[in-house]
């Protein structure tokens, strides 16, 4: 009886610790989120959503050009990064018996841990030095950040599909590539979509590699080989400015960025909902 009582007490203590740990993880999350919503939401208005960056001393203005810039650069980066990441993930999961895949997996993990500014400078050297600060250069750098995340999550998601399901399709006389594309992929699409989403959220919020590749631009889109504005960079530049209306724009940008990430998240959840 005594030992049962002790066990119950131990159980209770452990539970308290687990709750505390959860609380400690949630406090910063909610305080940041709360602050961003409280301060950011109040700077959202028609001007904010339709006007480009104001000039110094000019009242009002908005971040519409930065939203356009973030959408363009994230979109272009995904066009490069998602297919490469997906295909690398398929290679690592479905053809993992080769030495090449062992090396690829290792370097992929190394790349995943690379400081983003280093990747930014890589983009600077490769592209900015030849064509200048541009959307292309930033998309290139962000795609490199994206690839290892998509690769890893795709590989993990595909590996969760049981081998018996693959065998069933192959035994039906379905070629291997088609087995992967139509049977294995559909079983893993939720995990894959989550991985892509994670990588989108990650690159949408990157500022350092964008700063050294896309430069700073206060106006609208001028061409893929030209600099462009960007939300994450807006937060940095506006927040350290001395002007009150710029600071408000920084909070607003943060709010839009968070809302964007959350929005993508919800959309992906809806599309990948279990049918059964």
């Amino acid at each position, binding site marked *: 009886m005594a030992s049962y009582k002790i066990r119950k007490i131990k159980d209770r203590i452990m539970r308290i610790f687990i709750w505390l740990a959860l609380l400690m993880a949630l406090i910063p999350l909610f305080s940041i989120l709360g602050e961003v919503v409280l301060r950011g939401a109040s700077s959202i208005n028609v001007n904010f959503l339709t006007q480009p960056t104001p000039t110094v001393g000019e009242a009002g203005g908005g971040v519409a050009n930065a939203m356009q810039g973030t959408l363009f650069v994230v979109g272009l980066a995904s066009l490069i990064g998602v297919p490469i990441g997906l295909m690398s993930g398929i290679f690592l999961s479905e053809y993992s*018996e080769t030495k090449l895949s062992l090396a690829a997996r290792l370097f992929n993990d190394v790349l995943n841990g690379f400081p983003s500014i280093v990747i930014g400078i890589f983009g600077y050297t490769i592209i900015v030095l030849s064509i200048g600060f541009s959307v292309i250069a930033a998309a290139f750098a962000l795609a490199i950040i994206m690839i290892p995340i998509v690769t890893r999550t795709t590989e993990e998601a595909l590996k969760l599909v*049981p081998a*018996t*399901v693959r*065998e*069933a*399709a*192959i*035994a*039906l*006389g*379905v*070629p291997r590539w*088609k*087995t992967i594309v*139509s*049977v294995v992929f*559909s*079983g893993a699409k939720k995990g894959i979509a989550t991985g892509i989403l994670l990588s989108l959220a990650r690159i949408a919020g990157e500022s350092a590699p964008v700063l050294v590749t896309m430069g700073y631009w206060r106006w609208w889109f001028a061409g893929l080989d030209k600099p462009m504005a960007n939300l994450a960079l807006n937060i940095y530049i506006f927040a350290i400015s001395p002007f009150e209306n710029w600071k408000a724009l920084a909070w607003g940008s943060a709010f839009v960025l968070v809302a964007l990430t959350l929005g993508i998240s919800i959309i992906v959840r809806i599309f990948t909902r279990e*049918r*059964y």
Partner: protein
Amino acid sequence: MFSPYKFKIENLNAWFGSKHVLKNISMKIKEKAVTAVIGPSGCGKTTFIRCLNRMHEIVPGAKVSGKVFFNGIDIYNEDVDPVQIRRKMGMVFQKPNPFPMMSIYDNVAAGLKLNGIGDKEKLNSVVERSLKLAILWDEVKDDLNKSGASLSGGQQQRLCIARALAVEPEVMLMDEPCSALDPIATAKIETLIRMLAEDYTVVIVTHNMQQAARVSDFTAFLYFGELIEFGPTKEIFENPKSELTEKYITGEFG
């Protein structure tokens, strides 16, 4: 030239890496009959059946030598496309493995759909015919859009049989199809196997000797990768030639 044999196997050897799991197997498998492969765990039964539709080689490190003639053609000849071979043979696995993201209907239609047949009417009739053949139609005809994974284990296995039948194979290869099922579900599958034998060549791997005795016309006894004895089931069970076979079927080891 008419031959009553669906398979003629000559000196079949199989390896996993350096492990020699099948040793010089030679036998003939009769058309439109049930051939059972029995033997203790690890004797190579499953490997044997997987060599008949070239499924053994998809495992990394797996190797095969020897000849397997199917309808007179050596399926291990380098000109033979394994995908074409597999389309002519349905396979049922130890654990029911319906495609988890697909409905009952799509599971049965999968073999046709994935091979590019999209004609709705054709698919409807194939799905109905296959489910009826697998004695599952009456149980699922109102739930064709439900997930295949929502069925019971025995129903899932019959769904897998229907899925295999839908591509109109000539052979059904069954790898311990009842080992994960209860006695009632097992009885249903056994009845089904007997019915299938009227039109198909059935090869069934089983660790259950009573099952082999009940459903099969011919029995092969494998022991440590070697074919110890092969003949009509009645003879194997009532009058085995080998002492090893006798010991195994009387339950002295296994």
